[in-house]
C-alpha cells in the first residue's frame, strides 16, 4: 500500500499535515495512549502483567494507568506468566478483552503452552464457538548486552501457528494505530514492541488512529533494491538511508509492520519494480521470518528477480554478552549495504 499513514522519516517534528495535526511523542507514550483510549472506550478491556500497576510498568509503558483505572482494570500479577496468560485466555473466552503484558517476550516462553495450545487453537478446536480476543504485548528482540536468555526474537515462532496474529511496530504512530486495532481484533494478537525503541520520538496523528493489520508501508521509495525490515531494524535502516545514497544505491525501504498477516502484495509490487530484495531481521537465520518472506517473494515474483534474495540476520549463536560479540551477532547497516551491493552485483 503506497498510502502511508505512518510518517516518512523526513517528517520529524510536530507540524500539521494535510490529514490533520501531528503530535510528537515517544513510542512508549503512543502505546500508553492506545491502551488508555481503548480502556476508556470499552469497559471489557483490562491490562494485566508484572509491574504494570504500582510500578507504572517496567518500561513505563503503563505510566499512570493504575491511577486512572484502578486495580480492577490495571492488574499487577505475580511472576506467573503461565497462569496470567491462561487467565487472559479464559477471560477472553468469557467476554473480556485482556491486554496481557510480558515485561519481556523472553518470559512468554514460560507461557508458551497457554499461547500456542490455548489462545491460538481454541476457536478452531471449539468449531467456532469460543474466540479469544486478547493482546499479548511487551518488549521483544535483543536490547543492549542483556545476554542470551533476554535477547530472543520470537516473532517467527509465534507466526508459525495458525490462529495467532503477529504485529511489530517501528514508529510511535504505528505503535498507537496498530495497538488500538489489535485490542479491537477478535483474535489473539502477539504485539511485539522493542525496548530500544520505547524512547524514540515521532509524530503521531492527533485524534482517533486505527491502522489495519496486514498492511506494509513503504518508508522510502527507491528503484535499485527493495529492503524489507521490521521493528528496530527498520528504524535503524531508516536512520541510515544516507549511507545507501552515498553508495549510489536507491533503496525502497519497506516495513511489513505485521508479520502475520503478511502483506505480500506490497512487498512483491516493490520487488517487481526493483528486481532485487534484501530481507533484514534481528532473529536467527534458520527458519526465521525472512525465510518465509523470501519464499513468498520467490513464489510471487520469481521471474522479476535479477538476483537471489539476500538475507541479513542474527548469526547462528545465542546472543552473547560482550558488546563486541553482540555487535558481531546482530545485523548491521554495513552488512545491509554489503548485501544491497551484492544483489546489485557491485561486489
Amino acid at each position, binding site marked *: 500500500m503506497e498510502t502511508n499513514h505512518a510518517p516518512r522519516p523526513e517528517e520529524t517534528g510536530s507540524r500539521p499535515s494535510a490529514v490533520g495535526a501531528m503530535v510528537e511523542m515517544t513510542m512508549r507514550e503512543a502505546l500508553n495512549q492506545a491502551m488508555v483510549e481503548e480502556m476508556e472506550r470499552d469497559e471489557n478491556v*483490562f491490562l494485566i502483567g508484572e509491574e504494570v500497576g504500582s510500578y507504572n510498568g517496567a518500561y513505563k509503558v503503563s505510566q499512570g494507568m493504575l491511577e486512572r483505572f484502578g486495580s*480492577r482494570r490495571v492488574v499487577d*500479577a*505475580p511472576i*506467573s506468566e*503461565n*497462569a*496470567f*496468560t*491462561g*487467565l*487472559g*485466555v*479464559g*477471560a*477472553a*473466552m*468469557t*467476554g*473480556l478483552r*485482556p491486554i496481557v503484558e510480558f515485561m519481556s517476550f523472553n518470559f512468554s516462553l514460560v507461557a508458551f*503452552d*497457554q499461547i500456542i*495450545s*490455548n489462545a491460538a487453537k*481454541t*476457536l*478452531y*478446536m*471449539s*468449531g*467456532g*464457538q*469460543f*474466540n479469544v*480476543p486478547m493482546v499479548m504485548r511487551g518488549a521483544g528482540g535483543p536490547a543492549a548486552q542483556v545476554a542470551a536468555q533476554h535477547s530472543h526474537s520470537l516473532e517467527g515462532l509465534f507466526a508459525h501457528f*495458525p*490462529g495467532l*496474529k503477529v504485529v511489530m511496530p517501528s514508529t510511535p504512530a504505528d505503535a498507537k494505530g496498530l495497538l488500538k486495532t489489535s485490542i479491537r481484533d*477478535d*483474535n489473539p494478537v502477539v504485539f511485539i514492541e522493542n525496548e530500544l525503541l520505547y524512547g524514540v520520538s515521532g509524530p503521531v496523528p492527533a485524534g482517533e488512529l486505527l491502522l489495519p493489520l496486514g498492511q506494509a508501508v513503504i518508508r522510502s521509495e527507491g528503484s535499485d533494491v527493495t529492503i524489507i525490515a521490521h521493528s528496530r531494524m527498520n528504524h535503524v535502516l531508516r536512520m541510515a538511508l544516507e549511507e545507501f545514497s552515498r553508495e549510489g544505491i536507491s533503496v525502497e525501504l519497506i516495513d511489513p509492520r505485521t508479520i502475520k498477516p503478511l502483506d505480500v502484495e506490497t512487498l512483491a509490487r516493490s520487488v517487481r519494480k526493483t528486481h532485487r530484495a534484501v530481507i533484514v531481521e534481528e532473529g536467527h537465520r534458520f527458519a526465521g521470518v525472512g525465510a518465509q518472506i523470501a519464499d513468498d517473494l520467490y513464489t510471487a515474483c520469481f521471474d522479476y528477480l535479477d538476483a537471489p534474495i539476500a538475507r541479513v540476520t542474527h548469526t547462528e549463536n545465542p546472543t552473547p554478552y560482550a558488546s563486541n560479540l553482540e555487535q558481531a551477532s546482530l545485523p548491521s547497516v554495513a552488512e545491509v549495504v554489503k548485501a544491497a551491493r551484492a544483489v546489485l552485483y557491485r561486489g
Partner: protein
Amino acid sequence: MAEPAFTQKEEGFRADNGRGEGRTIPGALTEKQRETLEELGREGLLERYRLMYMIRNFEQRSEQAYQQKKIGGFLHLYMGQEALGVGMLGAIGPRDYVVTSYRDHGVALALGLEPGPLMAELFGKETGISRGRGGSMHFFSKEKNFLGGHGIVGGQIPIGLGAAFTARYRAEGQVSLIFFGDGALQQGAFHEAANIASLWELPAIFIIENNRYGMGTSVERSSSVQDLTLKARGYNMEGVQVDGMNLLDCHALMKEAVASRRQNPRPLLVEARTYRFRGHSISDPATYRAREEVESYQRLDPLRQVRGLLEEMGWLNEQEARELEKKVRDEVLAAVRFADESPLPDPAGLGRYVYA
C-alpha cells in the same frame, strides 16, 4: 548412601467406604446425606441416575465404536467417575463456568448436552459439537459456558482461573469449576493459578478428580503428600476431601461451596477420591493395577449405589429401572446412528474457525 527411591513400589489402593457392596442403604446414611436425599427428592435423584447411566452407556458405545474404527485418536473414558461429574455439576447454576481435561465426555453429558452432537464429534462429523475439529478431548459448549476439554495436562487450569476472574470483574456472582486429575496437580499451572485465585479472592473451585493414577503412575509415586488437600494450605485456601464415588456427598459439597462463594468470592480446593474403571485411554490395558484393587472399587460402582438407593427408597422398582435404562440406551443408540449418518466436514471448510 542408600540408593534413591525414585521408583519406590506403591502399596496399591483398596476402596472402602464402609458400606460393603456398593448398595447405599438409607438407614446407614449420615444426617447430611439424608438431608441431601430429601433436597433432591425422587425426581432429582432419578434425573441424576439417568445422567449417570447415560454417561456409562455413552462410554460403552464409544469404546465399541472405537473398536469398529469409527472413532480415532485418543479416547479417555469416564466410567467409574460418574457420581463425581453428575453430583457436582448438578449443583451449579446455568451461568457458572466449567472447564476440564481431555476426560471430558462425562462432564459434557452431566451438563445436559445432548449425546448426538457429542457422539458425532467422536466420529469426526460436521454435526459434532465442535464441528469435528476437536474430537474426544475437545468438547466445548458456549451455550453451557463449558470452556472445553483440554489436551495438555493442567493447561485448562489457568483458563478456569480466567473465567473466575471474569466473574469477579463483572461481579455477577458466577463461580468457575476447574476439573483436573491427580496428575495435573503436579503441574506448575495449578500452583500458579491457586496462588492467584487466593491472592485475588477469585471464585475458582479447583476439583482434583483423584482417580489414583496419572496414566500409569500412582499418586503414591507422584505426590509428596497423599492427602492432596494439603496443597491448599500453602495458598491460604480451604481444602476439602469428598468421596467421589458418592453422588450425595458430591452434590452436597458443591451446593454449599457454590452458594457461599457467590456471596463471598474465594477459591476452594476439592479432592474427590474416585476411580476409573478403564485404563488411562483406550490403548491402556491398565496392567499396573492389581485385579483386587479394581474389583474393590467396582464394588463401589456409583451407578449401583444410586440405583440401590432409589430402590431402597421405593422410588424405583425393578421394572421402572429397566424401562429408564432402556430409554437411555435407545437414546445413546440414536446418538450413534446420528453420528454414523452425519456428513463428514467438507475439506473446503478447512480454514474456517482459524480466525474470527
